[in-house]
């Protein structure tokens, strides 16, 4: 990669200054202040709310403060949910079905699940707790019917919960005992009824990304250049670009996914439109997934970003 390539920013806190403020508070001894900021964003679009909670949950070095806060405020639902979220994340790497520390992972997930059972019992409209229970249901192997039951409970509160839809998409894939037919069926159903510009409208793109990685490991673009696949990616691209994104932070993910897949498939102009919308921001997962194509993708980025500076 040459020195002139445009910088890549996969840390959303570097992209959105208010997220940096929240993280700084969480890590700088003002956890209650960070929680207040999270709470202020909790009623917006689910994908933004989850982006913010994930940012705090993934912040390093907050465990002691969180434990102290919970001792003083045992009834703080957000802090309890955050604690469960961190427990899931620390069990997370081992939640892979092939992981050797499966028993430890299951114990961690079960601890988190028990906190979440109570949170959902106390308040069945809690989107954040139900969302995390989709993660635990899959990690604990509770079966597809239980994942679906939980998703329906959540969808009754928020039928457009894009992060939950991504979890369901995963649960439906062959790796977790489902099928690509079922996964795409769900993704197309969600995308078809989604608003233009929305994250959920791009769920079918996530399905293609997952299938490409699962079947090919991201090595070749044969899968992506199939006419049917390309047509679906382009349709999703049209819909995502049709209006300004309704989400504050979460749009980075679908734009990165489409930019990467269309770029790898050789649709350079289309990919460029999404790279242009992204600026320096990129979602880490899909960007890293296309490692073999990064030089080419960077070329597309540098051309559209240079053009942007010219204007």
């Amino acid at each position, binding site marked *: 990669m040459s020195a002139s390539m445009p910088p890549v920013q996969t840390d959303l806190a570097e992209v959105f200054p208010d997220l940096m403020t929240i993280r700084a508070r969480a890590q700088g001894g003002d956890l209650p202040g960070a929680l207040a900021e999270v709470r202020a964003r909790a009623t917006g679009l689910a994908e933004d709310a989850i982006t913010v909670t994930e940012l705090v949950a993934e912040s390093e070095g907050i465990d002691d403060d969180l434990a102290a806060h919970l001792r003083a405020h045992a009834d703080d639902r957000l802090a309890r949910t955050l604690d469960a979220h961190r427990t899931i994340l620390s069990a997370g790497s081992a939640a892979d079905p092939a992981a050797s520390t499966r028993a430890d992972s*299951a114990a961690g*997930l*079960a601890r988190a*699940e*028990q906190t979440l*059972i*109570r949170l*959902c*019992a*106390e308040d*069945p409209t809690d989107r954040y707790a139900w969302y995390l229970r989709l993660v*635990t*249901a899959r990690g*604990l*192997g*509770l*079966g*597809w*019917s*239980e*994942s*679906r*039951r*939980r998703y*329906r*409970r959540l969808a009754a509160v928020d039928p457009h919960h894009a992060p939950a839809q991504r979890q369901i998409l995963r649960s439906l894939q062959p790796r977790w005992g489902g099928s690509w037919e079922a996964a795409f069926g769900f993704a197309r159903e969600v995308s078809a009824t989604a608003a233009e510009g929305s994250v959920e409208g791009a769920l079918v793109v996530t399905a293609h990304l997952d299938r490409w990685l699962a079947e090919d490991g991201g090595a070749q673009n044969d899968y992506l250049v199939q006419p049917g696949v390309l047509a679906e990616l382009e349709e999703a691209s049209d819909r995502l670009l049709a209006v300004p994104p309704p989400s504050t932070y979460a749009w980075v993910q679908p734009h990165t996914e489409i930019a990467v897949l269309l770029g790898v498939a050789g649709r350079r102009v289309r990919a460029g439109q999404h790279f242009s919308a992204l600026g320096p921001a990129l979602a880490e997962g899909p960007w890293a997934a296309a490692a073999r194509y990064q030089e080419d993708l960077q070329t597309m980025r540098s051309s559209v970003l240079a053009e942007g500076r010219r204007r």
Partner: protein
Amino acid sequence: MTLTRVEVDGIPALFAERTDGVYSGGILFRVGWADENLAVRGLTHLVQHLVLHDLVGDVHRHSEVTATYTHVHTRGGSPEQVARMLNGLCEALRDPPVGRLEVTKEALRAEERGPDGAGRVAALLRYGAHDHGLAAFPEVGLPEIGPGLVQVWVGEAFTTGNAMLWFTGDRMPENLQLTLPEGSRQPVPAASKPRANTPAWSVVDGSDLVHVTAVVPPSPAAAIFADVLNGALHHDLRERDAVSYSAGATYTVRDPASAVIAVTADCLPEQRGAVIGGVVDTLARLRWGAVSADELTEITSAAATAVDEQSEDVDTIVPRAVSSLLGLTFPEPHRLAAEYRAVTAADVQRVAEAFHRSAIAQVPEVGLGWAGWHAAHLGSGEVVDGVALTGRDGHHERLVVGDRGVSVTTADAVSTVLYDDVAVLESFADGGRHLVGTDGVQVHLEPTLWEVDDAALARVDGAVDLARVVRHPARNPDDLPLPPEPVDEEDGESAGSRSRWRRLTGR
């Protein structure tokens, strides 16, 4: 309703006057299958059939043996018919027709359907092979029951002091001759301390059912909790989530200290995970969620109205008589209705906690470790010292016959029965020996599975109390167990669960 307490031939009786021309009456004895031990399991039922034999032509006669009482009664008929039935029954009890013993056993074997499947696992895990745990077992004791034992049982339990009569009609029947042996009221069998570390779970493969029982102190709040739970399960699992066709809860007062609340939720095989999750969430909702004032008022009012309507119902004479027999207080309907109306959401929540602490669940897959419940185990996991017998045809389970007991070890569990702790030893003339410990653990010595020699059989036979032995003739060779076919790696887990089910149930 006018209720009169009288006495007939020394037996306490309740009489409720009614003027609709209907006559009924019955006799209750404070003895049931929970009073038996496993080696005589079926004895009370056998006595019931034996003494009713001469009354089979009586179309109005009904009878039942429950865990704690035996009830023979008439519905409809005339005062003369009521008297004839009770007189005939007492005559048979004074001199049981033991000549009919073997024929009656045959009839019982033909009738046997086995205990209720849903409650079996919970009964075994909670109590082992004792008292209420005997619900998990068929009537294995029948073959060894002789005339002497029948006389002893009748003499102890079917006595003046251990009986209770009831009658309804415009007058008491005349010419009653109900003399029975003298005897005293038998205490209700005390349920042994739960063996499982509760809340506990056990996976029962292929059952497509979630079944949870708990034992709580009886109270109006506990009865209302069960009603709330029943409605909540129906609403959550059937109406809202559509994962179960039939989901609900029941409440039964068993003795002065215990009421049993039982949850049942069925499902299709593809909904197993959802039905398990749904039951966990509904139970959690009653522990931690808000039961709305409207929801609670609706339930307490319905319960109060139902009991209010009973205040003039002469048929409540039967539960009144049962309560008196078992030492329970039969709550006066108007007072109970007021107590139901006074139950608060906080009361319901307290019972929900008590339910959780005592719960034992049977689930079709996965278990409930993820929800913080404990895996239920029978037995101590100890293996006795002794001679390991060689398995036939690659049979992998390790069988040890020792001086203190026998053990079978599989990849995932140890089953040990100590000779001093045998509830029953079923001894087959073909060499098979089935041992059940009082803790409910079962070990089957099968000559078709291991090279069981005469020395091993002699060691077992010589060590077990003869009073615990039930002998059977040789079984049909086609019915004997065979070493399992080698299983594929992929099927290993379900084969393990199946053998676990066999160990739990003995089948």
